[in-house]
């Protein structure tokens, strides 16, 4: 059987290919909830350490964050395909979680977590590195802007006063975790709404 194929149909096929390839590769937007979760984890750790100066505040809250993320991820795992891009970005965040847990556990237990400026600079620089690497892999400008905010927070922590560095760190968490995470969730929902069924 033969059928007539119009120019419009050919163009529609090309755009279908592009949108489906992009759909297969787009995963980070569906991870917006993890940014919000980790923003809450950082705020909880800051509140706990400000309250009783416990060396366990950061390692314990980070461990709780890792466990919560692992539980939610394992319950959603079946719905996501495996991609090289997904594994590359995923490995950055897994390595970040392990690094932060080990670093702050060791610093807390050794009693060397005494300089707030060094602590905030280290955590901000690590988060800047992870966001920057992920943004470069995904070519995502909004996430790169988050990396720039974290790097700026790291520099301010070194030169600013106690109050200035704390305020900048809290603002960076709000912008790069909470706001960016909600933006990711909304972008994912809007993309799903635009999605139309494909018939044979």
């Amino acid at each position, binding site marked *: 059987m033969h059928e007539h*194929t119009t120019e419009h149909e050919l163009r529609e096929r090309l755009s279908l290919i*592009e949108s489906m390839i992009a759909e297969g590769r787009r995963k980070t937007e569906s991870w917006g909830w993890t940014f919000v979760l980790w923003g809450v984890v950082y705020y909880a750790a800051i509140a706990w350490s400000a309250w009783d100066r416990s060396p366990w505040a950061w390692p314990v809250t980070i461990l709780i964050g890792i466990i919560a993320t692992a539980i939610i991820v394992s319950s959603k795992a079946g719905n996501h395909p495996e991609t090289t891009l997904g594994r590359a970005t995923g490995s950055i965040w897994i390595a970040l979680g392990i690094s932060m847990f080990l670093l702050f556990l060791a610093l807390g237990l050794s009693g060397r977590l005494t300089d707030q400026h060094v602590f905030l600079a280290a955590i901000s620089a690590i988060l800047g590195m992870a966001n920057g690497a992920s943004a470069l892999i995904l070519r995502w400008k909004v996430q790169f802007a988050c990396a720039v905010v974290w790097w700026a927070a790291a520099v301010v922590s070194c030169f600013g006063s106690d109050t200035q560095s704390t305020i900048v760190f809290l603002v960076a968490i709000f912008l790069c975790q909470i706001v960016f995470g909600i933006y990711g969730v909304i972008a994912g929902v809007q993309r799903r709404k635009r999605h139309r069924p494909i018939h044979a």
Partner: protein
Amino acid sequence: MPELPEIDPIVHGRLRLALLSLLSGVETAEFTWLRAKTEATDGNLGAQLLKLEQAGYVAVEKKFVRRKPQTLYRITETGRQALTEYVQALKQLLGLAMDGESTFHTGSS
């Protein structure tokens, strides 16, 4: 007059084209994920995936994960080649369309 490029009727089907394009961007994908992305019915999706499998464009792997059956699909090298050639043919046809052609004959499944 330039010769019109051949369009692969297996790849040309809308749902099959969507499936091949989706699979080209991932290593493996579950049936449920493909269903969610295409919003096709189980029966239609299964039938189109079977056609792609019979053409050698898609490979299927069935396994159990936590005692639940899981069907994984991946695009084969032949499938990737067919998709690449299809895109090239489309671009060629569209190039011809810009030069004045507007309707083409294609093989259809």
